[in-house]
């Protein structure tokens, strides 16, 4: 079970070169490239049936509505959920904010506790900080073990109390790649009566994810990291929770009856989709899901596991290179953070760019995690279904060039 190398041909951008060198794209944890079918779906919508959804009585409006709701069903099925539990959002960040504002403002009381981890992307930390400030709640933190970038689950048990209202945890670290034992965390959180939000931005694109298996209450993810366009993502929520939650934004599309003073609201998911939605990108995300399912998510996961195994072995041979995160590819995904002794990550990334190799450098929107690891910044290479061992070889050659450039001994 593996991804055929021909999938590369489906991605127009990967056919490009920079300064005569083939483009080596190793930044899919930031955003993925898009297959041609997704780009064509965007074009087709605008050229053939661009119309607003849920209201037009003419045929192209019916077609747009059908396609939009079909996309919802596809994205929901992709994570094993019914469509009425799937809300389209701008992305993971908006999905988490939706929960923090709508669920949080309604159900978190002064003195309650919100438990997050040191590993989180800022998008799964700052919304909870804001909620804690609004509601007079207290934030608590599960620690990260600096030696291998895994969560200290002993500290989880110490932090979980009957005051814990929300537990927010990433499924897979966007920096060190760690895959967290979300099901176990959710069981422990449910035992004290907390609800569990999982940030799936780095897991849903890369492995089979089914909400029943995660055992969580909310799952947030982004379309642009899973072969879809930017500006579209999703929140899955357990039906009884969504039904109990007040609206997030008010406006058209989310109401039943509007009086001057008050209104009544639609049922989920439409209650949470005020205004004209991002129709084109939602439809294209549905096509991205079709594309990924045709390849097979088990195959995507197996492919990335093999690539990470190869990358960890090759990178370990580079003198002065330090790797962060778990060494066992079974325990981690395709984001590989590293640093090169004596060269700042920005300079590493800059010289690699000169070789046509795209990696990210900096804190990757995870400053507390870097503090836990004891570094200000790292460089990060991340893979997806279209990467090959040759891409890893180009990275390693580029790193040798970085060493030479900065006068480090061979």
């Amino acid at each position, binding site marked *: 079970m593996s991804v055929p190398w021909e999938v590369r041909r489906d991605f127009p951008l990967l056919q490009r070169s920079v*300064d005569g060198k083939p483009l080596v794209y190793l930044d899919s944890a930031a955003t993925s490239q898009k297959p041609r079918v997704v780009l064509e779906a965007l074009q087709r919508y605008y050229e053939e049936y661009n119309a607003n959804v849920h209201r037009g009585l003419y045929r192209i409006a019916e077609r747009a509505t059908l396609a939009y709701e079909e996309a919802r069903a596809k994205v929901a099925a992709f994570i094993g959920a019914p469509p009425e539990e799937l809300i389209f959002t701008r992305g993971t960040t908006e999905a988490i904010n939706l929960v923090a504002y709508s669920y949080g403002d309604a159900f978190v009381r002064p003195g309650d506790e919100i438990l997050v981890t040191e590993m989180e992307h800022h998008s799964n930390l700052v919304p909870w900080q804001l909620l804690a400030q609004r509601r007079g709640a207290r934030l608590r933190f599960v620690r990260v073990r600096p030696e291998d970038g895994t969560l200290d689950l002993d500290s989880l048990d110490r932090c979980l109390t009957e005051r814990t209202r929300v537990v927010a945890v990433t499924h897979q670290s966007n920096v060190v790649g760690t895959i967290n034992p979300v099901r176990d965390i959710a069981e422990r959180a449910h035992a004290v009566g907390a609800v569990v939000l999982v940030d799936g931005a780095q897991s849903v694109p890369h492995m089979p994810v089914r909400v029943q298996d995660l055992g969580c209450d909310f799952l947030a993810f982004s379309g642009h990291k899973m072969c879809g366009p930017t500006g579209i993502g999703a929140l899955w929520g357990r039906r009884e929770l969504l039904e109990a939650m007040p609206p997030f934004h008010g406006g058209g599309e989310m109401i039943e009856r509007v009086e001057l003073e008050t209104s009544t609201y639609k049922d989920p998911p439409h209650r949470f989709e005020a205004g004209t939605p991002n129709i084109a990108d939602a439809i294209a995300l549905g096509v991205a899901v079709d594309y990924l399912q045709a390849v097979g998510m088990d195959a995507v996961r197996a492919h990335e596991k093999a690539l990470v195994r190869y990358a960890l072995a090759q990178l370990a041979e580079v003198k002065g290179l330090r790797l962060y995160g778990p060494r066992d590819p079974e325990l981690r995904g395709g984001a590989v953070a590293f640093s090169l002794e004596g*060269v*700042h*990550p*920005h*300079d590493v990334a*800059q*010289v690699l760019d*000169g070789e046509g190799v795209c990696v990210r*450098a*900096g*804190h990757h929107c995870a*400053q507390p995690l*870097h503090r836990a690891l004891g570094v*200000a*910044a790292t460089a990060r290479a991340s893979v997806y279904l279209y990467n090959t061992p040759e891409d890893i070889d180009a990275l390693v050659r580029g790193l040798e060039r970085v060493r030479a*450039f*900065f*006068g480090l001994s061979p």
Partner: protein
Amino acid sequence: MLEELYREIILDHYAHPRNRGRLEGAEIAVEGVNPSCGDEISLYARVRDGRLEEVRFEGRGCSISQASASMMTEAVRGKTLAEAGQLADRFKAMMHGQPPDEEQLGELVALQGVRRFPVRIKCATLAWVALQQGLREYEAGRPARVVTSSEDEL
């Protein structure tokens, strides 16, 4: 193209920073941070008779931010506060596309290659933005130790 960014003199200042360290009791002490990438500079200056008698820096960050700080400490030492402020203006003007005033800027002209890499410009200007902030605070009679931010993203 990379060689334009990483000129030999820049790599030399990065590997062997000049005037590195704290300066106790400095009249000017200011921190500059680059929020998007984590570069940090702490800048210290002793002011005597209206001149920057001694200038030192500490910090961590990329080669461009650290080399630029090192080169700045050499360039402004001994200058009056007004001269130092003018040099900062000239340096920033060069980084934002003006033709460099080679006579005034001297070896700082080596940093103009950074202009071709827009996201790195704020690395080069970080120490200079901190210096200008420090000069303003000093002239306003406010106590040393302020935090400033890098220039906005371009």
